[in-house]
């Protein structure tokens, strides 16, 4: 019994080890890979991200000048963001909420290719 006393006291005042999710949400760590966002102003539709994506989550339609992103396929590996020459992709810390329908994001990038001088 005396050996158990500190444990009892600790558990009595320690509070629960769990969180009441989703009411109480832990703040994600800095640089957690949560989801990715595209910056249409910067992207030049070069296609580097689509080629490198291991999950085939990005498609480029050169004719329609569209970048199609399937968030449901994305495994948030950050490869696209690391390799984008324009820095048009950023990784945000918050995880995506669950979804009921397969989401498709269609982007119309407006970035201009700078002329090589």
């Amino acid at each position, binding site marked *: 019994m005396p050996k158990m006393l500190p444990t009892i006291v600790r558990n009595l005042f320690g509070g629960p080890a769990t969180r009441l999710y989703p009411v109480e949400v832990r703040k994600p*760590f800095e640089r957690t890979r949560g989801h990715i966002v595209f910056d249409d102003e910067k992207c030049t539709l070069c296609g580097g991200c689509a080629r490198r994506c*291991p999950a085939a989550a990005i498609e480029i339609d050169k004719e329609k000048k569209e970048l199609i992103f399937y968030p449901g396929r994305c495994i948030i*590996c950050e490869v696209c963001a690391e390799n984008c020459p324009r820095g048009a992709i950023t990784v945000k810390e918050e995880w995506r909420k669950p979804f009921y329908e397969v989401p498709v994001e269609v982007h119309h990038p407006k970035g201009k290719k700078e002329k090589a001088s």
Partner: protein
Amino acid sequence: MSKVVRTVAPFGPQHPVLPEPIQLKITCEDEKVVDVVPAIGYCHRGIEKACELNDFPKNIYICERICGICSCIHGCSYCEVIERLFGVEIPPRAKYLRVIWSEMSRIHSHLLWLGLLADAFGLESMFMQFWRIREKILDAMELTTGQRVTQSVSIIGGVRRDIDSEQQKKCIDIVREVKKETEELGKVLMNDYTVKARTVGKGILTREQAITLGCAGPTLRGSDVAEDCRMQGYQAYGELGFEPIVEKDGDSYARAVVRLRETLQSCDLILEAFSKIPEGEISIKVKGNPPANEAVFRAEQPRGEVFYYAKGNGTRNLERLKVRTPTFANIPALLVMLPGCELADVPVIVLSIDPCISCTER
């Protein structure tokens, strides 16, 4: 005298102690198990074939998904085998970082298993306590790599992220805490009367049997064989003074003790790696396609030895990638451990090899 009737009881593919599907057809005489026939193939995903069809840098992310628990080591091993194919050496800091993350995976895997063991006896609160500790390690992983489970931190030529001094301090605190709590809780688990009654002398695998059947990992080391891939000194293990952990008895209890002691050892290895980690680059650029050559790599996973074989052909795709995972080596041992035991002991003995079926079938 009445005749003893033989019955065949299917164990699995869906069973409360099995997180993954494997079926054991158990032949019993009364309550005694006399024969076991395993059936696998419920979750084959064709990963090796997928790896041949993909570009080689993308395979890292497929290989990480071979197993959800030791994903980090799978990723590192794939990168390592490709680096050997290219014949490049990664910077020393990257080697240390890989060791740190691999050992964190080991802690998280063993704590998960210890929780499941407690759960198999019905010690529900013990199960939750182990998983509470495990949560801290997952936090350390998220802090340093950006993800809790599938870290995706190795790349061909090194690692993607560095651990800065602030993160290092936090990790050291977490690891010390985990070690202290695991020690405390481990004492309670291993000295418990019920646990001993259910594991001591159950599922015995002798030293000779373990060697003949080619077992791996804690199953092998629980049977008094000092064999651990980390003894080769790959990555930075050679500089960390690694000694394998061995128990003599070869029963379920010995295997549990091996895992518990390895958890504590991994904590020490991380702390030592942090104290010795050199400064410098964390990755080098690897250009071109894998040459037409072959390479192999063996690494120690929480469950035992994983074997990677890669064959390149000068293109973006690999000619062949072969992975052999530890559970595949340990299933034959199960067929030796089970006959002779009571039907009620089957779940605990099956759990004692820490089966990971998704790995096995890929």
